[in-house]
């Protein structure tokens, strides 16, 4: 039997998001959802990466955003049509506030693979 105490996790779905046309021409959109079950984390950062994990430019309402403990956040990520083939992963990464932790914390990062 497995008993777990003080569980704190981070979920970022879907695993394979599909690019769709946004309301702007030549701009594509991804719709993601983040669930924060980490009590020690309130902020997450978005990243769009190519196949070699290099950053790809993108737009979002906020690139670093607050998600309260046990709350979900729907996120829209906008990528230029020209970067469609370059954008390979969309990731969310936990941000640890300086001085927040007395221990050495774990930063979690989840990357979904973009379907074109």
């Amino acid at each position, binding site marked *: 039997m497995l008993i777990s105490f003080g569980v704190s*996790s981070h979920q970022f779905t879907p695993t394979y998001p599909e690019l769709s046309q946004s309301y702007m021409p030549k701009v594509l959109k991804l719709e993601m959802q983040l669930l924060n079950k980490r009590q020690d984390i309130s902020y997450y950062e978005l990243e769009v990466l190519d196949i070699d994990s290099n950053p790809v430019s993108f737009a979002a309402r906020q690139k670093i955003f607050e998600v309260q403990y046990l709350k979900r956040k729907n996120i829209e990520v906008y990528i230029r049509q020209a970067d469609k083939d370059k954008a390979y992963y969309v990731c969310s990464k936990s941000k640890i506030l300086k001085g927040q932790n007395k221990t050495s*914390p774990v930063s979690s990062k989840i990357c979904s693979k973009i379907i074109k």
Partner: protein
Amino acid sequence: MKKLLLATALFSTTAMANVPIMGTVESKCVITTETPGIYGNPTPSVLSTDEVDGGITPVVRFDVATADYYKAVISTPDSFSTAPALEDVVNWSGDVSVSEVTVAEMAAYDTNKRVYNNTHEFDLTIAGTVWFKASSSAGYGYDKSFPAGNYNAVVEASCIAI
């Protein structure tokens, strides 16, 4: 009375048959930080998360709903996120290994892992839960004493869709 019971049974069977059951298995990865690490200070020049050195090794749990959809990438620290001013080099070492599994075959993750720099990659080829221990050790200069103060470093655990 028998007719009434039969009618009731028929009626309830019909009602139950209309209740739909639906399910979706979504391929997703959940990263759970089970234990944050603490550095022990066994000698003035060493900070280590090993239990024998008075530290606590961080433990990260990966839950994978579907096999072969994700890889776990765990990096041990190569710098402090918080530390007093340091004037000499810090020599880092670290290791990541499987500590617990829900499926016995997951023990093979350790032998199949790829290691580069301070990063350890594991293909999550089996659905279920696996716990990884990420140990870290830092030595200061050539047997120099670390200045007094608080030291924190971050283990980065990533789950990447493949």
